[in-house]
């Protein structure tokens, strides 16, 4: 099914998630997207006056796997070990929505044509919303890369943006997926070992504080995200409930010949409007709250990963120190031990410095994003609530 988001970019959700101080030397956006059978094709458009590029404006078509390839390339690059790598966009998932549309199509005879049309409309809107979200997620990933002074200069990034042909990056096969999964386990085990058993002492208060903070924060934001999702789904459920109620009230009203007719029809109309409003409330909470929480859940995970890398570097440094001491006492292979220790020290210090900056950026990014989204959420909620009944208007009274 071909679905195109409006090229005009009304209300870029990407801006809501991350406030980016970009400069105009490199601007990236997803200008178009097409959803096919089981994949989505994104058209990535770049505007740049950087000398590196052949043209000032160009675009390529990319699929989700290529984004993942780019992300992994950054993660595996030692040069960026001291930076928070922007979290990879989640895989586009239309499964649930497609299933629902299919079930609706199979038909339920007790549903009237009007109700059917409304439900179909709801599901289509849902599909479209999911589509827009996935575009936004992919876009913000690229835009963060483009805004970061170091990350934007990566060669792979340029290739991603410019290379006209398919990058021939296939999706991870089962072995690679398993490998990735195992790597994560090893990582957490390693982290536990470093900090726990070997009793690695954190030398810097700042990082000590950050670590404790991030661990707790990540868990809690994940919780909040899950629960916000549930609230959003409940709102949607409620909106769906209003459909048969409105229909039943309409038919009751049309059968009455007395005063009740007006009452029923009015109530039916009210439920219809409530349905639309509940739907809007649900989607606003989704965008402003759930999505934001989800994004920062991933971003805080990326920050945690950075801390882990630094910790690893610290451990390596400690080990190098120990090795150097041992070499000195034995007076054998002192020079290689010395240079190894030097390297570890430098690496550790480099990571610490950049990590500090990155974490502070993370905080300010987070705060400003929360601020923006919470304000917008409150304003939208107010707008919706007022639509249903402003206090100043003429209230009910007998004629």
């Amino acid at each position, binding site marked *: 099914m071909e679905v195109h988001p409006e090229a005009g970019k009304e209300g870029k959700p990407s801006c809501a998630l991350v406030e980016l101080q970009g400069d105009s030397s490199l601007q990236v956006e997803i200008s178009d997207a097409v959803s096919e059978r089981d994949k989505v094709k994104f058209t990535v458009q770049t505007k740049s006056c950087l000398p590196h590029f052949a043209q000032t404006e160009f675009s390529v078509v990319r699929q989700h796997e290529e984004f993942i390839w780019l992300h992994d390339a950054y993660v595996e690059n030692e040069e960026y070990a001291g930076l928070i790598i922007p979290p990879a966009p989640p895989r586009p998932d239309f499964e649930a929505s497609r299933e629902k549309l299919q079930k609706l199509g199979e038909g339920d005879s007790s549903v009237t044509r009007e109700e059917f049309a409304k439900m179909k409309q709801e599901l289509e809107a849902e599909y479209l919303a999911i589509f827009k979200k996935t575009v936004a997620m992919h876009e913000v990933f690229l835009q963060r890369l483009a805004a970061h002074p170091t990350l934007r200069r990566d060669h792979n990034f340029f290739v991603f943006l410019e290379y006209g042909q398919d990058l021939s990056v296939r999706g991870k096969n089962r072995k690679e997926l398993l490998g990735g999964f195992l790597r994560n386990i090893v990582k957490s085990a390693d982290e536990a070992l470093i900090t726990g058993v070997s009793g690695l002492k954190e030398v810097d208060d700042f990082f000590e*504080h950050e670590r404790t*903070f991030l661990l*707790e*924060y990540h868990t*809690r*934001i994940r*919780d*909040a995200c899950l*629960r*916000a999702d*549930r*609230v959003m*789904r*409940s*709102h949607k*459920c*409620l909106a769906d*409930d209003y459909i*048969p*109620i409105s229909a*039943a*009230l309409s038919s*009751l009203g049309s*059968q009455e010949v*007395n*005063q*009740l007719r*007006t*009452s*029923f029809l*009015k*109530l039916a*109309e*009210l439920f219809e*409007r409530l349905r639309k409003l509940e739907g809007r409330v649900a989607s606003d909470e989704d965008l402003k709250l759930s999505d934001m929480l989800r994004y920062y859940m991933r971003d805080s995970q990326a920050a945690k990963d950075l801390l882990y890398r630094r910790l690893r570097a610290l451990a390596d440094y400690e080990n190098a120190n120990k090795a150097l001491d041992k070499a000195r006492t034995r007076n054998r292979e002192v020079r290689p031990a010395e240079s190894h220790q030097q390297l570890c020290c430098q690496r550790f210090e480099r990571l610490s410095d950049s990590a500090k900056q990155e974490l502070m950026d993370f*905080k300010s990014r*987070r*705060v400003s994003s*929360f*601020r923006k989204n*919470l*304000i917008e*959420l*409150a*304003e939208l*909620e*107010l707008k919706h*609530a*007022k*639509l*249903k*009944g402003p*206090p100043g*208007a*003429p*209230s*009910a*009274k*007998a*004629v």
Partner: protein
Amino acid sequence: MAAEREPPPLGDGKPTDFEELEDGEDLFTSTVSTLESSPSSPEPASLPAEDISANSNGPKPTEVVLDDDREDLFAEATEEVSLDSPEREPILSSEPSPAVTPVTPTTLIAPRIESKSMSAPVIFDRSREEIEEEANGDIFDIEIGVSDPEKVGDGMNAYMAYRVTTKTSLSMFSKSEFSVKRRFSDFLGLHSKLASKYLHVGYIVPPAPEKSIVGMTKVKVGKEDSSSTEFVEKRRAALERYLQRTVKHPTLLQDPDLRQFLESSELPRAVNTQALSGAGILRMVNKAADAVNKMTIKMNESDAWFEEKQQQFENLDQQLRKLHASVEALVCHRKELSANTAAFAKSAAMLGNSEDHTALSRALSQLAEVEEKIDQLHQEQAFADFYMFSELLSDYIRLIAAVKGVFDHRMKCWQKWEDAQITLLKKREAEAKIMVANKPDKIQQAKNEIREEIEEWEAKVQQGEREFEQISKTIRKEVGRFEKERVKDFKTVIIKYLESLVQTQQQLIKYWEAFLPEAKAIA
């Protein structure tokens, strides 16, 4: 003072009152005002109050509605019968004032009393018909409350006792205010007595609330959880509505059994209401037999009115059932929403605690508080959804079943008449045969016998016809009354329900407005 009441404006203007609403407009209150602008006469007591700026009535009146006991819903509904006089529009005014004015419900009752006591003593000596006619123009001053559910006894023999309070100025009662303790089976017993006396002559006897073995067992066992308190509250409200409906019926109100139920402190235990008793089983057998009979009776309907009405009720029944199922789903989902909102509020609070940026942390805590309050709102709305909307629908589904039962009785009555006619015919034929037969010695005796039988059956036929006509007449009146009550009930509830929705929205506005500056304060 009873001000001059102008006759309500007749129907034409109503549809045009329905304005097209734009986005910014007040959806709810214009809805409510349209409903209430249909024929209504202003309450005398409320006239001055209505001049007060309507805006200030916004939040307050709904507070009045929601704070009061649920029983006021029906107290006011009872009051409305007073406006129902023959020269008025039969489809009468709604009760706009409790919703709108700060005047509390008690003032509704007070002004009436002096006018009612005038008609009350007259009721004594009238015949049943005259009383019924009077009922249409009569004012009913009787208010019933069911309250204070109390668990009596222990274990499986435990039961809930409810306090039934009656406030009345009708002189058939010895006091003007009195209360008694009753248990659920007492209510069922009352219904069964009334049904056995009045159903078969065509009166629509309001059905009693349903039994629930599961619900009661939980209560007996002593589970003090929210679901059993909910169950008890649901039952209490249902019993109250049941009694209110029953006393509103002018004929049933006269019944000595009803009076005994309301007044006497000791009531003989109604054992026949137990499901598994002999009487219970007999009831089930009778019901099955009735169902079979209904299928086999082919009635020659001479009166199209009955056929029309039956069809109408059938349609109404189906639609109410459908709506009821949907509303039940709504109640369930709103409760889920409330639970999810509460859970989210907690995790938002936790997140706020973790957050090390002070202003953001405070804002998140505020968000958590807002969500908690919203959860409360959802709970209240679910309560309103259920007690106003859903219960009204289920009450009417059962009432319509009673109406259908009454139509069935009429059919049975017809069948009886028809059978009598057939038997009479047979007897006459037999007589004719005897006349032509040539057995002189037996003739005289046989002739007498058959004469007697024919007279007997003639009388039965006449009686059958009378009964049939009587039941038809009663049903017509009953259905008319039922329809009036139905319109009134639904309209009242719809308005109240709308107001609950308005109230919720207004509260939401307040909460979000309080939160917005906090969000903006994040530095």
